[in-house]
């Protein structure tokens, strides 16, 4: 029971009843004493007078005891009569608060409490209806998204597999010129696949905003693995991908390794993609008391000041990038920013046109309890779309 006993209904009734009974008692006692002094005290003997007084005192004391007992009893009955239905309502309200809407309270009384009960039942019915409708809408949305993803990807995977089987030479050798053409078609197809993936991501469906799994992780081994994965991409582009001297020892943070690998991976991908052959991309980190700062520095084409402002918005691609004719969806950094902010982190960029670009990703080492990253449930996420 949350409330203190002296605030309970029982004690309120008890004190009220005691007060109500004691006041007439006190008045009667006052009159008795007054009468005694005025009329009786000097007419009877000392012995009789003291006996009378004693009798009166005992009488009043017994009456007082009787009042206490009656008051206790009456207060108990009245408060029980009121507080029982109230307790039922309190329990029901608490269960609703906990999310259980399958509640109907049975109050048959016709008084004010009965009316309250009726309204309560009506309200629960309405809330339940709204909630059911929401659930259906969420379900529809989530099905729609799944179906859209599936329908978009099916033809893309047909093309991908056909290209690959042709390129693998499974259905006969193909001349170099045709191979080149198929490779180009496949590259375009890949960018389409990536676009679908990124769109789902940007909507937060597949990897984005919901379902984060935060765990203790070591950022040093994480960065080493990530660079290992990107090595091939860098080699193909003839860009040197290296780890800075800060990437050593251990550095623990609380984070979702998969999402961070996508976020920081996107940044490394970009750095490699926009650095001309012979350039360098360096991934480094710095441990500060409250945060770990990961940096990705390239010797690429750089980003102009006006482009820097819109860098992290959806579908934005820099002016200098667009005429490089590289593949890109304009979603990579948008996703990266979302992932980093879900980690209570910050992403910033320094760049000099033609000199290169450095991205800084600040990841707090500890999260204050109220800002502790929590996984959003799929339901609550879909509702927000």
């Amino acid at each position: 029971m949350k409330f203190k006993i002296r605030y309970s209904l029982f004690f309120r009734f008890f004190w009220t009843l005691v007060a109500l009974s004691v006041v007439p008692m006190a008045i009667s006692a006052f009159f008795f004493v007054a009468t005694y002094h005025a009329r009786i005290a000097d007419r009877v003997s000392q012995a009789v007078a003291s006996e009378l007084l004693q009798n009166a005192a005992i009488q009043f004391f017994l009456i007082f005891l009787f009042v206490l007992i009656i008051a206790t009893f009456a207060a108990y009955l009245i408060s029980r009569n009121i507080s029982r239905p109230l307790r039922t309502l309190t329990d029901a309200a608490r269960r609703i608060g906990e999310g259980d809407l399958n509640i109907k309270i049975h109050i048959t009384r016709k008084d004010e409490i009965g009316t309250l009960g009726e309204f309560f039942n009506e309200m629960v019915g309405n809330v339940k209806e709204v909630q059911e409708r929401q659930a259906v809408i969420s379900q529809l949305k989530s099905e729609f998204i799944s179906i859209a993803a599936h329908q978009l990807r099916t033809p893309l995977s047909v093309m991908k597999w056909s290209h690959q089987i042709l390129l693998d030479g499974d259905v006969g050798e193909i001349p170099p010129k045709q191979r080149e053409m198929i490779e180009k078609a496949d590259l375009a197809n890949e960018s389409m696949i990536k676009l679908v993936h990124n769109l789902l991501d940007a909507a937060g469906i597949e990897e984005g905003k919901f379902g984060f799994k935060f765990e203790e992780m070591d950022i040093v081994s994480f960065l080493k693995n990530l660079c290992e994965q990107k090595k091939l991409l860098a080699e193909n582009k003839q860009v040197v991908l290296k780890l800075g001297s800060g990437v050593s020892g251990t550095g623990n943070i609380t984070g979702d390794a998969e999402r961070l690998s996508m976020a920081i991976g996107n940044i490394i991908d970009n750095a490699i993609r926009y650095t001309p052959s012979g350039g360098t991309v360096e991934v480094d980190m710095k441990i500060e008391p409250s945060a770990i700062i990961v940096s990705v520095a390239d010797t690429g084409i750089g980003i102009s000041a006006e482009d820097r402002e819109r860098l992290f918005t959806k579908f934005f691609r820099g002016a200098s990038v667009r005429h490089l004719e590289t593949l890109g969806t304009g979603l990579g950094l948008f996703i990266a920013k979302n992932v980093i902010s879900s980690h209570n982190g910050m992403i910033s960029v320094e760049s000099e046109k033609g000199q290169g670009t450095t991205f800084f990703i600040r990841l707090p080492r500890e999260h204050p309890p109220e800002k502790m990253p929590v996984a959003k449930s799929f339901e609550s996420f879909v509702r927000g779309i």
Partner: protein
Amino acid sequence: MAQDEGSSLPIASMLKHGEIKILVIEDDKFLRELLVGKLKKEGYATTEAVDGEEGLGAAKKDPPHLIMLDLVLPGADGFEILQDLKNNPNVSKVPVIVLSNLGSREDIDRALSLGAKEFLVKAHHTPQEIVDTIKKVLDASYFQK
């Protein structure tokens, strides 16, 4: 690189003799043909099923060594089929690789918790990568015990 890795597995000698049976449950005819073609070329014996019920029947009749399962299927969906497979003592031990174009974490978690060994998004893997995964799963399920 992936192929070198594959040939070092003990599975390689069995493959030469076409001893490994794979059941492919996939409703898209062309995708099924592409995958089955690739698997045959790699030396697997394959059985095909166009929907879940047919796949379930085929698996019970002649338990394969591995099942490739699509999720979006006419009739019962892949999750139901996966559950049925895992509840059937004859085939519950057969490793299942889910190969679908669904890919939300919810779907992935659901398939893995129902007992799938791997979840591959079709559009994200080439036939060769799928074959490599099959080899790894077979090796882990049959040869590393």
